[in-house]
């Protein structure tokens, strides 16, 4: 007994990890590396959300030599997926020990990172949920974590793709859906949820990597009498208020804080039944990673009535502000505002629109935008000088410490927004918006001022709607920015100036965040375009 007890405590010290010497296991040290090099161990490459790589084998002077190494097309039988058409790779693959792990809704793939050879494919048959996207897997030792669209949290063996267990984390009959990449932090797997067709509350969970059991749960809405409950008219509205947590967040190891964006309030566009700021919807929340307790919040869209989730990646970096080194968090929010906060306490440093907008009357003392009640959806239509889908969306932004610029693929546009449910207790969306003119623009924002240092409006014939899909951004120490247009071109820009240096016409437009890694001494660039993964190297 004594002996068994000793063994048990030994395994606890190691956090219950399987042997890290196993060829395919993820060394936990890789998860806390400052910037990704020979491993891409988590959705954003590291916990900061910067999507900046220190690699510079590929640089501004030789990027024109970049050429195709291999492609991998997801063949999932039948092509079109329920309600969404052809599959789009929106996940950012993990690259661990020479193997890429990536997803589309209902499917996980393991592919040789050198050659594109398929190793295994896990195929889930859903019973509902939205197939709008899947952001990828999380990894702990030899285990992978995947969210099926219908609320199943599934662990796989990385070697074989064999299922270890599954846990139900959300009810698809209540119109929850799960698209996130589970995020491994210490001995927690952080799992978020989506859903807004029926008015349900949002939440974020930490689950045990070994067993999948619940460790903590943070609810997006307060309970009666708790701080924040005063921002709701009644308990009924608060209990159904939304605030989904569908996009992976970021993490500061020193502060042990998770930073997560929350989604729109419910009902989505008909706000008459939930007058008030509706905390903690459309917010950035800082949560203690071990306890799940809220430490601070900043609400990007108080009382949102436009479906502008504030889930966009909260990007973490350190820089000087007024001559003093600060721990910062920056976000280009869907509502069109660029926010810079002090990530130790949530205090606002900068709030400035990065696209034209008329829905807000300015900012309040806390730096939060003040919504204009005169620009809420109306029965007869309300004209907005911003795209209906917002100024950007989930698509990964990037921050380069080399240039000090925050990069975002933005949408300029106009829309008209309607209220379609005038009842006292609206449900669901209760409204709609229609895009008029719009244009996609890559913007490089100065984090000190919010000024647009350079921008590139992608040339096109088409008017491009806001879109939930679209190109993410990667920056590298080679002074490069990789992104794409909506005509299928994967494009390398000079990160400092914005000139185009290279492009590759893919069969479909860039649909995920590009990534880069070093393998056998060579720097690879990986990009997902529709149903195909493309790998590039210098030849």
């Amino acid at each position, binding site marked *: 007994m004594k002996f068994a007890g000793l063994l048990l405590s030994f395994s606890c010290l190691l956090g219950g990890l399987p042997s890290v010497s196993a060829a395919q296991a993820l060394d936990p040290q890789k998860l806390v590396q400052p910037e990704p090099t020979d491993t891409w161990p988590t959705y954003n490459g590291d916990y900061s959300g910067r999507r900046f790589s220190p690699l510079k084998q590929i640089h501004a002077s030789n990027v024109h030599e970049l050429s195709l190494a291999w492609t991998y097309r997801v063949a999932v039988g039948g092509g079109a997926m329920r309600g969404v058409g052809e599959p789009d790779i929106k996940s950012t693959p993990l690259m661990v020990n020479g193997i890429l792990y990536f997803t589309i809704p209902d499917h996980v793939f393991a592919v040789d990172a050198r050659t594109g050879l398929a190793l295994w494919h896990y195929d889930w048959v859903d019973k509902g949920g939205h197939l709008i996207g899947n952001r990828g897997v999380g990894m702990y030792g030899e285990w992978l974590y995947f969210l099926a669209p219908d609320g199943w949290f599934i662990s796989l063996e990385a070697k074989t793709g064999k299922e270890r267990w599954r846990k139900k984390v959300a009810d698809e009959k209540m119109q929850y*859906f799960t698209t996130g990449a589970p995020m491994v932090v210490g001995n927690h797997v952080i799992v978020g949820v989506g859903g807004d067709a029926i008015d349900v509350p949002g939440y974020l969970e930490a689950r045990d990597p070994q067993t999948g059991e619940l460790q903590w749960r943070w609810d997006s809405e307060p309970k009666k009498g708790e701080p924040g409950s005063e921002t709701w008219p009644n308990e009924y509205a608060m209990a159904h208020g939304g605030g989904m947590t569908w996009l992976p967040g970021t993490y500061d190891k020193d502060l042990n804080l998770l930073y997560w964006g929350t989604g729109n309030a419910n009902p989505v566009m008909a706000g008459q039944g939930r007058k008030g700021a509706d905390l903690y919807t459309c917010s950035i929340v800082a949560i203690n990673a071990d306890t799940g307790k809220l430490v601070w919040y900043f609400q990007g869209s108080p009382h949102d009535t436009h479906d502008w989730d504030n889930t966009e990646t909260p990007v973490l970096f350190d820089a000087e502000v007024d001559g003093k080194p600060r721990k910062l968090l920056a976000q280009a929010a869907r509502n069109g505002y660029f926010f810079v906060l002090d990530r130790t306490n949530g205090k606002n440093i900068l709030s400035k629109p990065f696209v034209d907008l008329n829905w807000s009357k300015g900012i309040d003392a806390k730096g939060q935008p003040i919504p204009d009640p005169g620009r809420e959806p109306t029965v007869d239509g309300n004209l907005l000088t911003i795209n209906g889908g917002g100024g950007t969306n989930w698509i990964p932004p990037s921050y380069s410490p080399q240039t000090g610029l925050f990069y975002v693929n933005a949408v300029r546009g106009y829309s008209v927004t309607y209220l379609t449910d005038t009842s006292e*207790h609206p449900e669901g969306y209760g409204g709609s918006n229609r895009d008029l003119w719009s244009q996609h623009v890559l913007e490089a924002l100065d984090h000190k001022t919010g000024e647009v240092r350079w921008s590139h409006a992608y040339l096109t014939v088409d008017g491009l709607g806001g879109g939930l899909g679209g190109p993410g951004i990667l920056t590298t120490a080679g002074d490069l920015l990789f992104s794409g247009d909506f005509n299928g071109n994967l494009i390398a820009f000079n990160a400092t100036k914005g000139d185009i240096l290279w*492009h590759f016409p893919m069969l479909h437009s860039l649909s995920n965040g590009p990534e880069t890694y070093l393998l056998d001494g060579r720097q690879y660039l990986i990009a997902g375009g529709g149903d195909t993964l493309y790998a590039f190297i210098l030849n």
Partner: protein
Amino acid sequence: MGPTAENHNPHQHRSKTPLVIVFVFLALVPVSRSQQATPAANPQDTTEQQEDSRATSTRQFLGLGRLPDARLAAEGGKIFAPTCGFCHGADARGASGPDLLRSPVVLDDDQGELIGPTVHDGRPGKGMPAFPSFTSEQLREIAEYLHLQVELAANRGTYKALNVVTGDAKAGEAYFNGTGKCNTCHSVTGDLAHLGAKMSPSDLQQTFLYPAPRHPSPPKVTVTVEDGKTMSGTLKHLDDFYVAFYDADGAYHSITLKKGIEVQVEDKLVFHRQMLDKYTNQQMHDLTAYLVTLK
């Protein structure tokens, strides 16, 4: 907001002479993967067909299951309102009793197998009386009514614009011929004749605000190549790397964009786009009210 101001020269690194791209016209059609993943309807469809196709594709996207049977639901509504509406509200969204649109009994039910017994037997522990006299057909109809209420709230593809005609038609007419200067290009007896009979008021409103997404027309392009020679035609493709067009004889041309090549795209909608910064909501509503009178 002008598209020309910030178009960076994609080939500047190769030359000191910038490529010139001049937008005189920019036609815009909606992206095929429309936002909110509610697939765009075919513009040639009638409004009714568009609504049906939007509702069907959105239902499929949401995983809401089958389309509720409208006839059964209508019968069910006749029973539900007087019998159940007192506690649950006539629209089933809750009163003294719970909101049934979010009820697991309703959402997990398919064809009355859960709702039927619940209504028939009641929930004595929760204060819901039993309704033992309902026939199995009636229980099925009540179930279908509830499924339809869920569909109407959750399936945003079924949402219909309410009354968008709230403005003053006289003021709209004055704006059309005055401040708005719409009559500079348009005539209510010419190109806009019978406009109000051709489309629904909400379609009409969105169309006059910015016609391109609903009525795409291929833009004209003129390309000036290095030797000063110009070619023009109907634009087929434009991105940061090449322009493609059909000339007057229908012959296809594609030209790689590089230094010294100038692309001019005719911009017929520039005034519509400029107006989007100028309209007040009242002017937009007045103009809508006027244009719908053009039967």
